[in-house]
């Protein structure tokens, strides 16, 4: 039906602006719009649309058509969504997906569609670009390990935590986050005696709560959404008083704006993240204003997902502008433009890519504070600019330490 309507509308308008219509550029956006991640996924879509809106929805006289498609967090559904966008909706550029395993799936898929350009949304698996990278898959953002840079050192040196227990979900994204935290924390001299890998979607963490050793100084929590809420509540109720160190999606605006008494636990907690809701930088304030204006029903500030989908779509718009909207010749010129692109991000740094087409990013160490109205926000305690994917280490040594897993890295 909708297709018919679009066709009818196109025909009607066609008489007036026919040339522009004929050469529409289509951008497909894949995000999770169902299930537990739905509200995060919606914010991702907002980010991508915002970048297009910002450019007026037009590049060099060609209108930009954004087509969204939902996945359900599974790699299979992300691949199906991408295939439909490419083969049925004829998109030229894909932005997405949201989660790590989906990202690896689309990276693999991109090799079957050399004429389409894939730009990562917010998925942050390390291997998406580090190992087996694909010529037409770009990530204008970091991976989960990059997102933790600065926190390990801060926790050891500034906060004085000598030993930390880890509570994290049992899959690849938290593994990567733990790697980012530990590689810095362990080399600073800290120890991680115990790691608790819990199944995603776990409801009742009480037995984990009581298993946390008494002699650690803090708990590093890399849980997302409802899992973080459940763990923190139960830890609080059990009278737990160890300080918390947060993963990137443990402390995000989507969590801070959830309802419930557990939030007091988070006040003062440091975390690593590429996205800070209350960042005072001029670019971020302007970005937030733009976001709030466009989406009054969105979060009070863009989430990590809106931010990253925005950067992906923004890169596409800028590169399109550079090549005057031309995607001829298998998008070669467009991709060259993407590869050489440098732009100022909403966080004030300069986004550019490394040789694997992975972003060199700004990362923040933040802490949670209570606003005057009682709501929670995060503020920046440290900015680390120009974080690359090997975390500043020698690439060969970094690669040799192997892919992330439950036991890699380790410093008990």
């Amino acid at each position, binding site marked *: 039906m909708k297709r018919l309507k679009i066709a009818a509308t196109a025909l009607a308008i066609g008489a007036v602006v026919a040339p522009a219509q004929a050469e529409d550029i289509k951008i497909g956006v894949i995000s999770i719009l*169902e*299930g*537990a*991640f*739905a*509200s*995060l*996924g*919606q914010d991702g879509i907002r980010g991508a649309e915002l970048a297009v809106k910002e450019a007026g929805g037009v590049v060099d006289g060609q209108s930009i058509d954004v087509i969204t498609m939902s996945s359900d967090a599974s790699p299979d559904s992300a691949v199906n969504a991408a295939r439909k966008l490419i083969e049925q909706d004829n998109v030229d550029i894909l932005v997405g997906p949201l989660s790590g395993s989906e990202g690896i799936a689309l990276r693999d898929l991109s090799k079957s569609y050399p004429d389409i350009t894939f730009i990562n949304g917010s998925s942050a698996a390390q291997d998406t670009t580090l190992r087996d990278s694909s010529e037409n898959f770009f990530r204008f953002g970091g991976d989960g390990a990059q997102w933790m840079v600065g926190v390990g050192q801060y926790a050891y040196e500034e906060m004085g935590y000598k030993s930390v227990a880890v509570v994290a979900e*049992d899959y690849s994204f938290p593994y990567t986050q733990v790697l980012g935290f530990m590689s810095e924390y362990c080399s600073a001299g800290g120890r991680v005696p115990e790691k*608790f*890998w*819990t*199944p995603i*979607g*776990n*409801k*009742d*963490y*009480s*037995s*984990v709560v*009581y*298993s946390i050793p008494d002699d650690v100084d803090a708990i590093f929590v890399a849980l997302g*959404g*409802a899992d973080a*809420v*459940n763990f923190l*509540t*139960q830890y609080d*109720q*059990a*009278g*737990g008083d160890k300080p918390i160190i947060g993963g990137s999606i443990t402390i995000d605006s*989507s*969590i801070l*704006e*959830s*309802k*419930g*008494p*557990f939030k007091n636990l988070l006040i003062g907690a440091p975390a690593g993240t590429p996205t800070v809701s209350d960042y005072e930088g001029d670019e971020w304030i302007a970005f937030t204003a733009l976001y709030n204006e466009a989406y009054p029903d969105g979060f009070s500030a863009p989430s990590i997902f809106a931010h990253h989908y925005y950067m992906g779509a923004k890169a596409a718009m800028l590169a399109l502008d550079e090549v005057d909207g031309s995607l001829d010749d298998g998008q070669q010129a467009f991709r060259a433009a993407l590869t050489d692109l440098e732009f100022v991000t909403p966080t004030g740094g300069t986004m550019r890519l490394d040789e694997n087409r992975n972003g060199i990013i700004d990362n923040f160490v933040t802490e949670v504070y209570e606003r005057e109205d009682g709501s929670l926000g995060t503020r920046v305690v440290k900015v680390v600019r120009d974080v690359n994917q090997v975390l500043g280490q020698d690439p060969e040594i970094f690669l040799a330490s192997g892919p992330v897993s*439950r036991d890699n890295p380790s410093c008990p």
Partner: protein
Amino acid sequence: MRLFLIVTLNGLTLAALYFLAASGFSLIFGLMRTVNMAHGALLLLGGYVGYDVVELTGSWMLGIACGGLAAALAGAAVQAGILGWMQGDELRQTLASIAISIVLADLMLWYWGGITYQVSLPDILSGGQKLPLLGVGYANIRLALMAFAVVVGVMLWFLIQRTRFGAVIRAGVDDQDMLRALGFPIGRIFIAVFALGSALAGMAGVIAASALSISPGTDLQFLLSSLVVVIVGGMGSIGGAALGALLVGLAEQYGLAYAPTYGVVFTFGIMVLILAVRPQGLMGRSEQ
């Protein structure tokens, strides 16, 4: 040893929550042989409504009542409008209730969004206290869970064993045709029982939202746990549901504490094992 005792206590309190969630499922299953796959969705609905009411009025009890009422109305509508028309066709009912749960979940996502909700507790239940003996802090709400489970269990037992309505239900579990032949308005009885089972689910939803939290996906988790609890325990038996809840709650907590990697697999492994040996569940009566 201390950890073992605490984990056991955790298992018991979780079992209490699972029992609350599964009791309504068991009731409906027991009388009508309806596998209500929308049970989780009704539970989530109750939780959301309960949250809104508590936020609006500040009364936790009112939140529980309204959560139960909302789920009861929805449940009655589902039985009267859809499932009742295919009574006796278990597979079709299963499928229809899956469809209903897909629609309900999507509509709830639309209305309440994807964020996580926690119901604020009344003062008496919030916070925790030092357990004597074990010397650790323990959440009041979790201790209260066990009391709720006992109260609900006893009330259900009384309803089923000691009231006229219960006698009708018991007769129906054994022989629906006989009940129909005796001239009972079986359609209306089914709607009433469905509403009652849904009300239990809705109230459990508010309690789950208070003790843990609710978000999209909670519906599936509680549906799965209720299925395991009821099937392992034996259908239509309140005692069976209690036993099943104990097994599942303890298995889950021991798994989480001592074998985190394969803990979840154990729960379902236990279910497979029990059903392989006793196809009708632990307390269920053989159908042959």
